[in-house]
């Protein structure tokens, strides 16, 4: 559902901008940019993102899912959340 995906994206972007980039300038966060490359997340930052996703979307993230393909960009995070919600 595109509208739902858009809202996941908006919430994820808002969270990262506000809590990891401390910015309201959306241009600082391209959806396909590697969060690790840009220094936006690190080992504790990724845990903050996971806690946010679990709370905001009612999903459960396993340690074995903490991979770059699930968390290294806004797009990857949105796809991961969508997949989790569709199996829930």
């Amino acid at each position: 559902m595109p509208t739902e995906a858009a809202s996941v994206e908006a919430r994820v972007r808002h969270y990262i901008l506000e809590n990891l980039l401390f910015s309201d300038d959306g241009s600082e966060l391209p959806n396909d940019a590697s969060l690790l490359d840009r220094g936006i997340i690190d080992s504790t930052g990724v845990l903050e993102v996971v806690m946010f996703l679990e709370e905001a979307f009612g999903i459960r993230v396993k340690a074995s899912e903490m991979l770059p393909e699930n968390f290294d960009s806004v797009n990857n995070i949105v796809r991961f959340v969508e997949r989790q919600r569709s199996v829930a």
Partner: protein
Amino acid sequence: MKDRIAPRRLLHEALLEHGADPVRARRTAVVVEGQAYSYAELLDRALRLAGALRQRGVQRGDRVAIYMDNTWPCAVAIFAVLLAGGAFMMVNPLTKSDKLGYMLDDSGARVLLSDGHIAQEFLPLLAARPALRVIASGKFPEGHAIEAFDVVTAAGAPLAAPSATIAPDLAALIYTSGSTGQPKGVMHTHQSMLFAAGSLIEYLRLGPDERILCALPLAFDYGLYQWLMAVQLGATLVLERSFAFPAQVFARMREFEVTVFPGVPTIFAMLLSAHRGEPLCFPGVTRVTNTAAALPDEQALRLREIFPQALIYKMYGLTECKRVCYLEPELLEAKPGSVGKAIPGTEVYLRSPAGGPVPPGEAGILHVRGPHVMLGYWNRPDLSAQMLRPGPLPGERVLCTHDWFRMDAEGFLYFVGRSDDIIKTRGEKVSPVEVENALHAIDGVHEAAVAGVPDELLGQAIRAWVVLQPGVALSPGQIRAQCMKRLENFMVPQQIVICAELPRTATGKVSRKALLEQLPG
């Protein structure tokens, strides 16, 4: 290595030996993102880059900045600089533009080696530094005087003549946070680093068949030494960019059968938390090491569930001498809370602030004596004199750590506290003054004070107390956003308290102690 007669005097001699030995040359030196590179490839690339550095003006003793992520080019660069006769200077890739500029100027680096993906930080510095040569890996914006790492190392001729380097020459400048707010370059020679690597190898009981994990930044001396030790041994480094994606690190540990796991308390806390959700077990790991901040005994013992075959080492050190002490892993239960004794070939003793002896069981300031002690701080004889004190022999200098320890009757050391205000967060040293300077640079901030507060995951979290100028409205989020532009992410305060004024001491200085006392938790 029974066939060797010549002693190793320089850090890179081991690489030359492995490259010249037909068996060892084929062994894997490093695995990066799952790709293995042999000692022959490492030596070839390093000699080509060394040749290129020489062509670009690097001479014996010159500094070369390595501002890179944990990548294959970074692993090559460290040895290339040494082969060319230079001293490498590691810069954490999270470093922002202004601080990088300071370090380039302070060190007088002739060449900057970096990654394209952090070009936005180094590009603004180039115009004012036309003599600085830049070589970058990966993709970077066109239209600048930047050379591509791959082109330089593939096309360039290997270094023809070896450098005339001798053991007391500078091998590395390792910048560390200081209480003055500006980072200072710790000078280490080939002699001090080769000695330290050998001492660590000895007490960790490492051999040539190790697969050593490194997910700590190579820019951090704890990470750097994993690579230096691997090359001394002819062993394999399994290099990961970070612990941000633990599942990836775990998969790589299994695939490449990692035997040595170096971590810091934040990483061990995360491992134990993941283990509670989905049990983890790495029976192939035979050594687990901790340093940078104290590992609680209870956590150390629980790590045995994850690493059932491993010797667990609690250690303590500082960049100024690499490592001070370690606890023999067999004594983990017998000596709770202790970080053990001096590393092989060195000694430690406690002194009172007046310089007198300290009886067993009482707190004193730890002093370190041995060939691993730094030469001093680059360009800072004043700060060097504070740390390096006269030793027992005429002209000798020992390292005064300024950290308080107790020593029991058997000579085991117990950390008591620091005598400065340095914050330890996630195992990184953070100068409160450096964070305060960044806060003071924000428009609308009248004054600020910064201190560490206890935090379960980070060890210490950074809290800032900020007084705004009259009529200014800045939110904690806006203040943190400004800090992000100047500070490495781990230095940005997690907590910001806006207040009307800061408490002062009788002499008018802001009192961090009073701030910590007046606020709960």
